[in-house]
């Protein structure tokens, strides 16, 4: 059974069509890459999946449940995590607190317990801290644990954002341009983390990126979009040979 199934989704903003009839599935422990020129609708698809945009038509099922129309925090609680194209961290919080916030849905205690910091609140916070420390180890963030994220270099901020999404213990992870603006070394680090997430943690991923080398190396399948329309869907080798993809990227021959 697929983790995510998107069927014929259409989204438009007052006459501008952002997504036009896109359908795809994401299988367990699969890495699906979404590529396309600027304005092709890649980020719009992510915003539909995480509940920020509401499409006019189509259906999206996550773990068998329909999720269109749910508020973003409900979808997050079901186990769908994402990162953003432009880093959207909580800038005044430390790396540790950003990651702890990622576990927001896993806490059960309420306001009275929080005011007193007794019993359940203390137990849950300590347990969450242990889980967060595992992610800090996994992403090699220990050196920056106490730093407010606004003071960190861009490459590290991207990694913290990945950590915050991982802290949610997601069932599906959406990565929006995880290596945008990174140098070669940072890109290779990130690629290694992405592969580890799929292979060691077994979390399926959807990845949007412009770095074709990275996409073709990592992805199990590639979805190609152009002007919101679905141009191709297949393995990297199939997609690279597809004449329609070549046309979208290179222009008419």
């Amino acid at each position, binding site marked *: 059974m697929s983790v995510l199934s998107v069927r014929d989704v259409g989204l438009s903003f007052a006459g501008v069509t952002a997504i036009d009839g896109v359908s795809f599935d994401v299988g367990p422990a699969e890495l699906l890459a979404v590529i396309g020129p600027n304005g092709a609708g890649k980020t719009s698809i992510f915003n539909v999946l995480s509940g920020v945009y509401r499409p006019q038509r189509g259906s999206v099922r996550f773990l068998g449940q329909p999720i269109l129309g749910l508020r973003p*925090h409900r979808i997050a*609680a079901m186990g769908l995590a994402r990162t953003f194209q432009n880093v959207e961290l909580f800038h005044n919080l430390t790396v540790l607190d950003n990651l702890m916030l990622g576990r927001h849905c896993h806490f059960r205690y309420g*306001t009275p317990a929080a005011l007193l910091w007794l019993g359940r*609140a203390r137990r849950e916070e300590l347990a969450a801290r242990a889980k967060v420390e595992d992610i800090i180890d996994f992403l090699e963030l220990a050196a920056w644990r106490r730093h407010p994220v606004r003071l960190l270099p861009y490459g590290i901020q991207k990694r913290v954002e990945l950590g915050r999404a991982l802290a*949610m213990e997601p069932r599906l992870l959406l990565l929006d341009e995880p290596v945008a603006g990174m140098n070669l070394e940072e890109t290779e680090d990130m690629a290694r983390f992405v592969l580890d997430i799929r292979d060691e943690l077994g979390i399926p991923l959807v990845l949007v990126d412009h770095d074709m080398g990275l996409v073709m190396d990592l992805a199990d399948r590639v979805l190609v979009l152009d002007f919101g329309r679905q141009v191709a869907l297949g393995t990297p080798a199939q997609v690279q040979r597809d004449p329609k993809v070549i046309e979208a990227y290179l222009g008419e021959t």
Partner: protein
Amino acid sequence: MTHTDRKVRIWGRPLLYTSYAQDMALFDTRAKKLWCGGLVLFALALSQVLVDHTLELLATALVAAIGAIGLNLVTGYAGQVSLGHAFFLAIGAYTAAALSGDPAGRTLGFGVTNLLIWLPAAGLVAALAGVLVAPLATRLRGLYLAIVTLGLVFLGEHVFKEWDDLTGGPGVGRPAAAPELFGWRLDRPGPLGSREQQLYLLVLVVLVVFAVGARNLARSRIGRGFAAIRDRDIAAEVMGVPLTRYKVLAFGVSSFYAGCAGALLYTVSGGYFEAGSFSLLLSVQYIAMVLIGGVATVSGSIAGALFITLLSPVTRELPALLPFISGDSTQTPNVFQVETVLYGLLIIVFLVFEPRGLFGLWLRVRTYWKSWPFSY
């Protein structure tokens, strides 16, 4: 990867933590423990040392600190700028005064003088008002929210001026809440000393409880949710923080603090209050406490409240030093005008030179002495 829960203290290594419980404790360093313990002891000792008039002033400052912590929760932590704090203070003050008022008196009263009833009740009624106002915050943000909450102050001012039964009418006023604990009137000389000494000790205890509660809230999932909404609201929602519920919660808790502060404010200072007190100026004073003390810090709120409250007796001394400033409110320039100008000036100076406020100054001093005598 193993996580140890054993607490081990190694002699000579006070900052070596061996468990997350130690690392996440409220007082995570020995210095913090000693400072806070010392300050509380110092505050207790002051009740025996200072004269009654100064104690009354200090008690007023401590009550203001409760209100400032409340405003800091909604504005500093959750980032929802509120100019309506005076309105919530007023609701608390009138709820407490009406509950504990004399049933046979000139103004509305129910005769429930038990502090343990009217103090939480004042907080809860104010919190309810906060919860009713909060949905506005889910639709508006930044300046627009500030303007709407400003409207609350004017609405409240009008209602309280007209509702003579409750407030005693403009220029007349009514007695503040009567503090009674198990049949023991705290506003009359008793076993703990004079009226001022007893009230001072009462508000000191209440402040410590409220401050610890706010610190705990700030470091919990709820405080992190507030900060997330302040820094990036869309990202917060995508990470699973329900925006509407958290904004309502922020206003509710903040107004609860304001309500309790309002209830105690006039009980400790003078014992009598008037509807005109809850004007925009009061809201601005609380904004000044938060900005000058330190945004999103509890200790900063307390420092700011002490600073602003103790500022006015200092300015009252000005006519003696600078003869061109008058002590009479009918003449210009007078001390009241100077005071208002000072609030504005102080806010500007702090925003420009130390946006982290008094708390930031303290951080500078601390880092300096941490590395002293080596600069790095």
